[in-house]
C-alpha cells in the first residue's frame, strides 16, 4: 500500500463519518417529496464508491471507463449507476439532486463553468478537456471568419460555443455580422447543416464525434479553423452534493494520479474521444 493509498483510506473513513454526522444540510436544496427517493441507499458503502453515468451524453463509454479507473486507484469498488432517464425536462436539476442524494456519489460529465450551477453542487478537478468546434459543408472557407457577412451560422442554443460566437458576432458592426441561428439539440443542429438551413455549425466536438456516423451525409462535413469558439478548451468534471467535500478530495487525488501516469490520455485514445488530458 503506497503512502497515497494510506492517506486516501484515512480521508475516506473521515469523510464517511462526516457524511453520517452532517446529514444533508445543503443550502437552497430543492424541496422534494420523499417519493422521489425510492432507493434511499447510501451511495458510499464500505469499500465501494458509486458513479452516475448518463447515456444521454456523448462521453458515456469514456465516463464509465474513467469511473472504473478512479475506483481502481482508490482501491474501491466502482459501482456504475446508469441514469435511467431518456427525456430531458425542466426539472433536470431536481433529478440531479435526487441522483446525488439517493443513487450515486459522483455524476460524471459536467462542463466546469464557474458560477453556472446551484450552490448545492461541487465539482471534481477535470476528468479531461474538450472543445467546441466549427464545422461546415465544403464551401471553400478554411476559417470561420472567412464566411461572408449574413451567412447563417448555427449553434446549439445557449452552449458555451454559442455564447462565444454570439459575443464575437454581436461585437461586429451590424453589416459585418453573420446570421446566428440558435438550434435545439446537436442532432437537430447537424440536420440543419445537412439541410442547408445553416452554412456552418458551432458544436461540442464530442457530440460531433458521436453523431458523425449517424448519417452518411455528415461524412462531407469538415472542421473550420475557429479559435474564437474553440479556445480555451472546456474542462469536464464530475458533480457531487456539496456536503461531500471529503470524497471530492479523494477523487481529485485519484484524478491527479490518473492524469500524471497517462491513464486518462490512454483512455481518451482508446475510445477515440476528442479530448485531452490535463496532465
Amino acid at each position: 500500500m503506497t503512502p497515497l493509498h494510506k492517506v486516501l483510506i484515512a480521508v475516506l473513513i473521515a469523510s464517511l463519518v462526516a457524511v453520517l454526522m452532517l446529514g444533508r444540510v445543503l443550502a437552497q436544496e430543492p424541496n422534494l417529496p420523499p417519493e422521489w427517493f425510492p432507493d434511499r441507499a447510501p451511495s458510499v458503502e464500505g469499500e465501494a464508491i458509486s458513479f452516475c453515468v448518463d447515456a444521454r451524453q456523448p462521453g458515456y463509454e469514456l465516463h464509465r471507463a474513467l469511473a472504473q479507473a478512479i475506483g481502481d486507484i482508490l482501491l474501491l469498488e466502482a459501482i456504475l449507476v446508469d441514469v435511467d432517464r431518456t427525456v430531458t425536462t425542466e426539472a433536470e436539476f431536481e433529478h440531479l439532486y435526487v441522483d446525488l442524494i439517493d443513487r450515486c456519489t459522483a455524476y460524471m460529465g459536467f462542463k466546469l463553468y464557474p458560477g453556472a450551477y446551484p450552490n448545492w453542487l461541487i465539482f471534481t478537478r477535470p476528468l479531461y478537456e474538450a472543445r467546441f468546434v466549427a464545422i461546415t459543408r465544403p464551401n471553400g472557407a478554411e476559417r470561420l471568419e472567412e464566411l461572408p457577412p449574413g451567412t447563417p451560422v448555427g449553434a446549439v442554443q445557449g452552449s458555451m460555443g454559442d455564447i462565444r460566437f454570439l459575443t464575437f458576432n454581436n461585437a461586429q458592426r451590424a453589416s459585418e455580422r453573420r446570421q446566428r441561428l440558435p438550434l435545439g439539440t446537436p442532432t437537430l443542429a447537424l440536420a440543419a447543416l445537412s439541410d442547408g438551413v445553416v452554412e456552418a455549425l458551432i458544436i461540442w466536438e464530442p457530440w460531433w464525434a458521436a453523431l458523425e456516423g449517424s448519417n452518411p451525409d455528415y461524412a462531407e462535413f469538415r472542421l473550420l479553423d475557429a479559435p474564437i469558439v474553440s479556445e480555451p478548451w472546456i474542462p469536464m468534471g464530475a458533480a457531487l452534493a456539496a456536503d461531500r467535500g471529503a470524497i471530492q478530495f479523494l477523487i481529485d487525488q485519484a484524478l491527479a494520479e490518473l492524469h500524471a501516469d497517462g491513464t486518462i490520455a490512454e483512455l481518451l485514445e482508446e475510445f477515440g474521444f476528442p479530448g485531452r488530458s490535463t496532465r
Partner: protein
Amino acid sequence: MQLRWLRALPALLLFLIAFGGLAFAQNEVEDFTPLTQEMLENPDDADWLMWRRNYEAWGYSPLDQINAENVQDLELAWAWAMVDGRQETTPLVYDGVMYLHNQGDTVQALDAASGDLIWEYTRDLPGELATSSSSILRGMALANDKLYFVSGDMFLVALDPTNGQVVFETSMGDWEASFRVTGGPLVMNGVVVTGVSGCGGAQPGGCYITGHDAETGEEMWRVRTIAEEGTPEGDTWNDLPYESRFGGSAWNIGSYDPELDLVYWSIGQPYPWIAEMSGLSPLAEGNNNDALYTDTTLAMRPDTGEIVWYHQWLKNDTWDLDYAYEQVLVDLEVDGETVPSLVAVGKLGIVEAINRETGEWLWAEETVYQNVVESIDPATGEKTINSASFPHIGQTTVNCPADPGARSWAATAYSPLTGALYIPMQEFCSDTTPNPLGEGEVYTGGGRATFSRRPVPGSDGNIGVVSAVDLNSTDEIWEHRMRPANGGSAALTTGGGLVFTGNLGRYFFALDDTTGDVLWETRLSNLPNGYPISYAVDGVQYIAVPVGQGSGPSNAFAVLTPEIVNPAGGSALYVFRLRD
C-alpha cells in the same frame, strides 16, 4: 354440525372482507345524469364542473351558507391522503361526487359528503413519468357522460364517470420530446380544447393547442403557438427560421364565451428566456422581434381553431414573465359603456383588461412592485420596457418580480358581488446572470441563467400579498400582506362574501371580500397547493383544499423565508363544513 359450520366461519369472513372491499373500492356512481351544454353554461350552485367552475374562469361559488358571520365555525368534515408525490389539482364535484386527479394519473371518484372512495383509475405510465411533474394536472373536465384528462404520456383520456372505465384515449403528442399538459382540457359544444406545454425539449416550432371531438377523441384541429413563417405574425422572430424558434407553452386552461363562441387561451414565453441566446436580440435591421404568439392571448373558434384575434401582453419576453394564466371574462363599465371584457394578470402582477369581442386594449392597473415595465400607453396598452432590467450575457441585472412571477399558476378569483378580482401574489426580485449550461447540452430547458432571488427594495419582510382590484373603477381596494409567499394556492370566492386562499406557511384562510380582514384561518399538514373549491351536498356547503408540494415556484419562493420549513411530501385533500 354446529362445529363444522364454525370451522368454515374464518374462510367465510375472509371471503366477505376480500370481495366486500373490492366491491367497495370499485363501486359505481348511481343515477348519473349526462351533462348538457346548458348545464355547463349554467352550473348548479352545488357543483364545480370545470377548472375555475365556470367558462368565465371566475373561481367563484355562489354558495352562501358559509359566510362572514359564521366562517369561524368551520371544522374538518373529512380528509383524504392523496397519491404519494406532488399535486396542483382541482377537484371537480357533480351531483355529490368528487373527481380527483392525483400524481401518476390516478383519478378517484369520492363521495363528496363522506369522503368514501367510489372508484379509482390508475394509468400504467412509463416508469420515469409516474413520479415526474409530467403526470400532475391542474384540471380535468366533465361533459356529457365523460370525464376528461390528459395523461403524463400525452393521451387525451375519456373516462366513464360512473365507474372509471376508459371510454377512449387519443395520443396528443410525443412525451419523449418533452411535450406535456400541465393545465388540462376545457370542453364546449362537443369539442375538447387543450393546451400543450413542455417546449423545453428544444423542439422547433413551439407548443400547440388542440381541439378534439369529445365523443370520439379524434383530433379536429391544431394551432401552433409560434406563428408560421411567411405570415405577418410569423415575421416577428427577428428573421429566425422556424428551426430556431422555441417556446410558447400553453401552460394553463382557457375560458369560453358561449355567446361570442370564442375560446380564449394564453401562451407562455419564448425559449430560452435570455433573448440574446434565443436570437430575438439584438434586433436585426428591418426586422421585428415581438415573437408572436408568445405572451399572447388567442381568441379562437372552438370548432376550427381559427384565430379570430390575438393580443400580445409582453413582447420579446426575456425574463420569463408571461401571462399564460386564467382569462377572466366579465362585462365591465368602461367610459360609461358596458364592454364584454377579458381580464388577465401576468407574472408582472399588472391587471389588464381587453375587449373580448375585438381584442382592443382597455386599461391596466399595477399591484405589487415591478421594475420591468417603465410605462404603459393609456391609449394602446403598449409597454415601454426599462432597459436596465434587460438581461445581457456577461452581466448581472435586476428584475422585479423574479422569474417565478408576482403571480404564478395559482389562479385569481373574481366575485360578482364586489366586482373585484382577488390576486394571490408575492413580491420579490432576481439578480439575473445569463450562464451557459449543458454538460453535453443535456439541459435544454428555458432558463440558462442564474437567478438569485431576494426581497424587493425596501421590503417590509412580507413576501406574500393578496390584492383586491375593483375591475370597474380599476382601483386596488385592499391588500393583505403576509410573511410567507402565497406559493401555489389559488383563490376561491364565494357567495358568502369570502375569499379563500393560502400561503407557504401552511395556512389556509378566509378573508372578507370587501375589507381583506382575516375572518378564519387554519394550519394544514402541508402548503395549500392547487385550487380550492366549494360545493354542496344535501344542502350542506363544503370548502375543499388540496395541499402538498407542487412544481418549482414553491421552492423558489421558499428561499425568501428560510425559517419556514414544510414537509417534503404528503399530498392530501382537506374538506371543511360548518359545525352542526
